[in-house]
């Protein structure tokens, strides 16, 4: 079991690699935004298993994901379930009616 823990530790170090995170961010832009904005991704805070399922679902729906590992690490590093929730932005007033 010890080697497994070691492997997990090594992976967690790899996760913090800024180059991987940059790759993941670029992958998000390349593979996701043709179909939807990134905000629907960024409002969520999910575990590794949950993000894995989302990526599998999206790949099945045609997302051309090439570097899945980098994308996953980027999502976890920024939108993991241990990350704080950011308040939602408000849109500008574009109503036609006067109140």
């Amino acid at each position, binding site marked *: 079991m010890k080697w497994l823990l070691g492997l997990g530790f090594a992976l967690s170090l790899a996760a913090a690699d800024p180059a991987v995170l940059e790759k993941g961010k670029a992958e998000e*832009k390349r593979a996701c*935004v*043709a*179909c*939807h*904005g*990134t*905000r*629907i991704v*960024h*409002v*969520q*805070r*999910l*575990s590794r298993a*949950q993000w894995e*399922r*989302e990526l599998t679902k999206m790949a*099945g*729906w*045609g*997302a051309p994901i090439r570097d899945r590992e980098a994308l996953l690490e980027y999502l976890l590093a920024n939108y993991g*379930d241990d990350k704080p*929730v*950011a*308040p*939602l*932005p*408000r*849109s*500008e*007033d*574009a*109503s*036609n*009616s006067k*109140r």
Partner: protein
Amino acid sequence: MFSRRKWMKVLGAGMSALDGWGQGPLRFPGKRPMLVQNDFPEDLETPVEYFDTWITPNDAFFVRQHLPRPKVDAGSWRLKVGGMVSNPLTLTLDDLKKMPPVKVPATLECAGNGRANYRPKVPGLQWSKGAIGNAEWRGVRMADLLKRAGAGAGAKYGNFNGADNGVAKTPDFIRSIPMRKLMHEATIVALEMNGAPLPEIHGFPARLVVPGWDGASWVKWVTEMDLSDEPSKGFFFATAYRYPKYSPVPGSAVKPEDMEVLEGMAVVSYFARPVHGSAAKKGSPLRLQGVAYAGENRVSRVEVSTDGGSKWIDAKLSPQNYPFAWRLFTFVGRRGYRVSHPLFEGHGFSGARAAGGMPVESVRVHV
């Protein structure tokens, strides 16, 4: 000092600058400032402080879209009614306008409203409380359409498609509704929302209004109704929008066979004011305000506790008392109280409090 609203705006602007890949300013024609869950397609949450009128104006009404919004031309738009019918129909907008109109006040709530409060977190839009609104819908009774089309005795479901299409390999948004609900006199194909033609973002020129049921059933930009003896096998009916048949341990996996289609919505209430954690002026009476909705039932009572649940006092309700439509409640308490979530009983829900069927939300104010 910044007011809360001002602060949120500043924060919002900062976030969009960080976030945006040419996503442009957050501005949605016809909408007041909304909480932006997503901008493409638009998923917009109504800030709860807008919940101070029984009718939610169109410019404040929440928006949920799965697929990019279709541009529908009113002249070439058609509603096709086919499948197990003796007289298939292809109707123009004018054809629908010639049929007897009905008005239905009804609350529309997204099945995922409140998801932001789940622990552990679950995937999906992180709605707080604002994926709900109440409108007066005007259109044509579904039962009239079914009679005109000569619905067959074997038909069990209407399978509905709209003008929106799946991008890449995303499945199309198709929903199935059983005949008993389609034949209900309040189920309509709506052409108007609060006295105006349906706004594009809300389904122009026609959408389903399925009172008391979750928003997923209220198909927008509807173009096809196919009567069948079986429901859609598509993702958005056969997999999505299902709830567990039992109360699972939060975070645990539920087998697909233990999930069932969500139909009538559960009893809910949401505090609109004050905002949790906000400040109240010392000595001033505390005014609580919110909305209560009971799906297919009427809301007959909203009770508020200011002592952690020992004693419950009736809140004042807005006068409109209909099935399918929410009621506003107000309660004037005394300062310094911890005010727990109002409980209420809709028709058929007496004893709901004892049964524990109510999520508890508390709102605390600093004095």
